[in-house]
Structure formats: C-alpha cells, structure tokens
C-alpha cells in the first residue's frame, strides 16, 4: 500500500493490556470505543482519524499485548501490524503506575526499529501513589519522547500529537542492547546473510526473532539463513544450558532493571485501599456469594429505577398509536395501511423501545463494575470453578462481554491461546444472556412475577452463565481432551469509574439499540405484520394467516414446554433475526387488543409456561448476527450448525424440564 498524496501520518497505538490505549484512542479521536478496567477489551484493530492543524493523522488502536511473540489471535493482530503495515510512528502507551512491566514492550518496539513516542498514561494516579519517573532519563535510555498523559481527562493529548508529528520528521535513532558476546556475535552473523524481506523491522531484531525460532519469520527467509540460525541456536543453548527465549528475556529484564533503578522511585509503599478491598472481593469463601449478591442488586436496581420510565414510554406509545389512528382515519386512510402503521410498526417497534430504560440502567451497572476493575476479580473467582471442571478461567473474560452482545463476545474469544479453547468459548458464549434478550424477560416477569422481577431476572442470567460453563465442560469432555490454557491475568487496582466513560458506554449501548430498532426490528415488524395479514381476506393475526400456519407447523415441538401455541412458535422463529423480535412478534400478534401486552399475555401463558418460555428465549438459538460471527471466527459452517442444533436441543430440554417441574409445584 503506498502513501497517498495528502500525506497522511499513520500512528499505531501499542501497549500492554489495560494501560488505557482505548481511552487514549477515544480521547484523541473523539470516538466511543468500549473501554473497561480489565485486560482484553480490544480484540480488533480499530482506526480513527484526527485533523491536527494542517496534518491528517490516521490512528490505529491495536489489541493490548505484553510482548511481540504472538500467541493468541489478538496479539497476532498487533505483531503482524507492526511487522507488515506501514506506520510512521508507534505510540507506546504505558500505565505509569506499572511502568516497570510496561517498559519490556517499549524495549522490543525500539529493537524492532520503531520510531516511538511513549505515553506515560495514568500520570495522575502515579503521582498520587508517590511514583516518581525521571522522564529525561527514560527518553535518553530508549531514544524516545515520553509525554505524561491522563487519557480519561484528555490531559497531554495535544503534546502527544505534537511529539508524534515531530518524531515522524526526525531521524529515528538506532537502538540495540547487548545480549552478551556470544549472542551478539551470532546476531551479527545472521544479519549478514539474511535475505531482504518486506518486514518493517531492523535486521538485528529479525535475526533475534529467527534465533528464537519465530515460525512466521522463518517462512520468509532462505534455507541458508535457517541452517545458520539453527546451528547458532544449538551452540548458544548448549553453552548456557538454557533456551534462547529465556536468555533473551532475562538479558532484556536485566537491562531494564538498571534503567528502572535510576529512573523510577516509589516513595509510598503502604498497603493500598485497593489491596484491602481485594481481601473482601477475592475472599476464598465469600468471593462468589458477594459476586452473586452484586449481580442481584444490579438487577433489582435496574427494575426499581426503570419502572416509572417504562410507564411513561408505554403511555407515550399508546397515545401515539391513538392519535395516528385518528389522524389516518381523518385523512381517509384506513384498513390495511392503518393496520400496518399501528398494528405493525408502532406496536412492533414500540414494544421493544419500551425496554430502553432497563437496557440503559443494566449497562450503567455493568459499565461501573467493569470500570472499577471488579470484573477482573470475577474472572479470578470463576477460574477456581472452571479449573475444577478442567476449563480455563480466562474463557470467562469473553463471557463478560456477552452480557452486552454475543457477537462481541464471540469475537473476544480471540484472546484465548489455543484453537480448542477458542471453539469452546465460542460454543458456550451464546448462552450468556445478551441485552437483546432483556426485553423478553422484562415483559414476562412484569406480567407474571411483578413482585419478584429482580429475582427472576437474576436467576435467568445465572442460568445463562451455568449453561455456558456446562457447555464448555461438555464439549471439552467430548471433543478436546487436552489441557486447557492456564490463567495468567493482571488484576489492575480498583479505580473510581469515570463519569464520561460510563456515559459513553451507556450512550453507545442505547444508540446501538435504537439503530437496531430502526432497522432490523422495524423490518421484522413489517414482515411479521404482512405474514399476519396474508393471504388477503383472512382475519388479522388469526391461525389462518400465513404466520398462523407457520406457527402451527412448529408449535407441537413446544407443547411439552407449555407454550405450544402458534403465536409463541412464530415469535421464537422470528426471534432468530434478533432476540428483541420475540417481543415484537408477540406485540404485533396481540396488538388488536386495547389492553396492551402485559394484560393479554396471561390469556396465552401461565406462570409456569411464562417461565419456560423465558428459559427457551435465553437458550434456544444464537441470533443471526451471532451465528454469522461463529462462522467467521471458527472459519467453518460446521461449528455454526453444531451451535444451532445444540442450543435448540438444550433449550427444549431445559424449558420442558422447567415447565414440568413448575406445574408439579402447582404454578
């Protein structure tokens, strides 16, 4: 790819996980990408554009990575980008409170020959913790320009852009550290014969990677170079009685520690309040009960606080429907078209929009939990349970994203190292209850369990988590008997959530939801309305309509679960388009009544079948977008079909079970 004439400057954002890269990306570009105080939130590269004075800048946010050896998919994205794509400047983001760890990546970027600017992010926190950083010494030692930043408050962003543009125009100094005489000599021997590649890296760094046995780079060089590196590697490993990767890493850490000793001073060593909090939240016995309690409170608060808002919206739509009807009649439009607008569009889209307050509030809660760093502790807690079932606790990280949207969660499985773990996580993830399913539960709990709405919601979500874990366990047993990748995860200190970030998360979620309401849900409403109207002449939304016939065909499948009506069957079928459509379908089908859905549902469902219907909606099938993501991420249709069949079976079995138990309890 060649540079276009307008001279766009490309800056790549690189850094360890959870250093605030995405916050910085958002601060620099004004975007609203998802951030959280836990590692592994960004799994894709994201681009943004900045106009700084007369310069056009393209900023590329890469997934967080500790090193450049690339083990998981998301880390590969970062490594490959740095080696293959052109970036004029690399902006290395580091967490100032954790700077000793972060310099390891900076060192490698400089060895690669990257023109680097260092963002010393979270500078305010470092100051509070009494961490003194000698910026000049860092600059001098690494040949970089370091700028203190506080991304969440947009501090230092201008200076960062200026430094980056300046770095682009200046000559990039060579940088190399010594690995001891023997290795240094080997590196210089390899650099002499290494063939020309398109990789954007210093030859010495490539030689080092070859010596370490990087298979991606080995593919690009000739036989002669490979023979030489193999010979040298063997000689060195024999001489030091250690593998080359350890030797290299230890040399780097040694070099870093000499700089760290001079450049960084920690004046405050008392036990932080963060450590004190951890004694409670990661407690061996109380940790899990506390997590469950917190989740329960989130659902309880979501319901209590949103109730008045929901009522306003409901009344608003009832009024809108009424005046539209009157207006349409007045201008002489009635019959089919009036029905399309009020029974189809207003009822269908409106039924889902009613749940906007719940979705916004639930995400307020989740976003606060993410921002504080609590979600990282949850992963730690879950690892105990998951390890005992032979699974990796790391697989829980993508699941947390699943509460928002299963598509993102399926993509986040990239953070897992082995293909087996990724597939397990991808198959398990759709059971995590995403925000699209919330309207179904809220509707049914409101109509059937008004006194225990929070509790029932909590149980449904819990069932989702349990089924996800069960699924990973089951497929692990059947398909992949090997060991799961062990957990290594940083636990960042607890932080107060930033208002702006929380607002961005919630606003982003609301926006996505509204967009979906205006597109997929609107479209589905029209289709469902049409199917309920055709063939012409039938009574609207009757069993004789096309929709009635489709529903009746499927309905017997659900009779043991207690909701074998054609309406329920039709709602579930169309719910595959998007889970909110389950509610939309019911609304369109029952819209002829004045009373509204919550009043009419008890005519078609009992408490027991309402419960089993919610269980079915949770489990029965990933939505179309998630199925697409499964196919993309696994690279095969096979896993997608497996996921469809498996979840349908699980959904049926559990909803039948729930219904049969419930009726025996006399519900």
């Amino acid at each position, binding site marked *: 790819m060649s540079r276009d004439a307008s001279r766009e400057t490309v800056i790549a954002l690189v850094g360890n996980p959870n250093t605030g890269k995405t916050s910085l990306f958002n601060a620099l570009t004004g975007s609203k990408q998802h951030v959280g105080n836990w590692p592994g939130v960004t799994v894709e590269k994201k681009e943004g554009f900045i106009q700084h004075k007369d310069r056009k800048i393209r900023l590329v946010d890469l997934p967080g990575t*500790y090193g450049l050896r690339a083990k998981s998919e998301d880390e590969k994205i970062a490594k490959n980008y740095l080696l293959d794509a052109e970036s004029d400047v690399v902006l290395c983001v580091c967490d100032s409170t954790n700077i000793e760890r972060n310099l390891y990546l900076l060192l490698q970027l400089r060895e690669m020959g990257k023109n680097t600017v260092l963002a010393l992010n979270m500078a305010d926190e470092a100051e509070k913790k009494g961490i003194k950083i000698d910026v000049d010494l860092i600059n001098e030692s690494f040949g970089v320009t370091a700028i203190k930043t506080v991304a969440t408050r947009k501090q230092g962003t201008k200076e960062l852009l200026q430094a980056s543009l300046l770095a682009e125009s200046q000559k990039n100094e060579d940088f190399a550290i010594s690995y001891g005489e023997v290795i240094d000599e080997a590196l210089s021997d390899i650099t002499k014969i290494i063939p020309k590649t398109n990789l954007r890296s210093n030859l010495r760094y490539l030689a080092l990677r070859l010596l370490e046995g990087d298979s991606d780079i080995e593919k690009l060089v000739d036989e002669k170079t490979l023979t030489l590196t193999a010979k040298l590697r063997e000689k060195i490993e024999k001489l030091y009685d250690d593998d080359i990767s350890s030797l290299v890493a230890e040399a780097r*850490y040694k070099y870093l520690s000499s700089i760290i000793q001079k450049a960084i001073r920690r004046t405050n060593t008392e036990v932080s309040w963060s450590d004190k909090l951890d004694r409670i939240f990661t407690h*061996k016995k109380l940790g899990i009960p506390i997590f469950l309690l917190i989740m329960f409170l989130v659902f309880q608060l979501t319901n209590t606080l949103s109730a008045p808002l929901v009522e306003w919206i409901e009344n608003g739509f009832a009024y809108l429907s009424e005046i539209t009807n009157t207006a349409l009649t007045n201008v002489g439009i009635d019959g089919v078209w009036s029905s399309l607008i009020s029974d189809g569009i207003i009822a269908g889209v409106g039924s889902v929009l009613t749940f906007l307050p719940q979705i916004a509030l639930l995400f307020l809660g989740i976003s606060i939990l993410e921002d504080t760093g609590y979600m990282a502790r949850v992963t730690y807690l879950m690892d105990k349970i998951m390890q005992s079932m032979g699974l990796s606790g790391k697989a829980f990280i993508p699941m947390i994203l699943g509460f928002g949207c299963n598509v993102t969660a399926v993509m986040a499985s990239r953070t897992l190292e082995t293909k087996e773990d990724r597939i397990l996580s991808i198959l398990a993830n759709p059971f995590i209850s995403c925000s699209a399913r919330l309207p179904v539960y809220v509707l049914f709990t409101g109509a059937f369990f008004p006194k225990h709405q929070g509790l029932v919601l909590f149980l449904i979500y819990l069932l989702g988590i349990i089924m996800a874990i069960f699924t990973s366990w089951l497929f692990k047993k059947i398909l992949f008997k090997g060991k799961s990748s062990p957990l*290594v995860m940083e636990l960042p200190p607890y932080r107060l959530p930033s208002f702006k970030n929380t607002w961005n998360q919630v606003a982003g979620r609301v926006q996505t939801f509204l967009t979906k309401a205006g597109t997929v849900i609107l479209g589905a409403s029209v289709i469902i309305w049409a199917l309920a109207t055709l063939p012409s002449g039938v009574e609207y939304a009757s069993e004789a309509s096309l929709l009635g016939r489709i529903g009746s065909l499927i309905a017997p499948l659900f009779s043991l679960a207690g909701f074998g009506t054609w309406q329920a069957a039709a709602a579930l079928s169309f719910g595959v388009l998007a889970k909110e459509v389950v509610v939309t379908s019911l609304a369109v089908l029952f819209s002829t009544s004045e009373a509204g859905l919550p009043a009419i549902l008890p005519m078609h469902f009992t408490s027991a079948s309402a419960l089993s219907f919610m269980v079915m909606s949770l489990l029965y099938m990933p939505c179309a977008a998630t199925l697409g993501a499964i196919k993309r991420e696994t690279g095969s249709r096979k896993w997608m079909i497996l996921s469809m069949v498996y979840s349908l079976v699980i959904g049926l079995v559990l909803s039948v079970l729930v219904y049969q138990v419930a009726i025996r309890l006399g519900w």
Partner: protein
Amino acid sequence: MNKSVYLSLMNSGQKGTIQAIDGGERAHARLLDIGFYEGETITIIENSFNGPIIVRLGSASNKIALGMGLAQKIMVLPA
C-alpha cells in the same frame, strides 16, 4: 540457607526471588512476557491452595492472578 520451593506451595504474605521457570515453550514465553523472570522479586498476596494464586512482581501496582498449573512451574527462593 533457604531452599527454593514451588510458588504454588508458598503462603500468603511470603516473599522471595524467582529462581527458575519450567514449563513448555508457550507457557514459558507468556510468563516471561508478563514479567516472571529469574531474579525478579515476588510477593504472594493470596494463596488459598485451591484455585489461582495472586502475586505481585517487584513493586508493580498491578497484581497477577496465576493458575495453579503455572504456579507449579515456578521455583522461588523464599526471602
């Protein structure tokens, strides 16, 4: 003279210096990248002997949760 022990067997509150890291290439590389290397000081924050162990490397403010499987591969010389 202290003898080095497996990290997995150390108690909460104990400190030490990393002596050796075994384990396959993959696990080893990940541990090195995240900051476990011979000579680094390590503090055990929480070890419940059932589930992952929480440690602090050097004086970093981030702690690290480490699965038992990995903790069994790290030899530490208690201080």
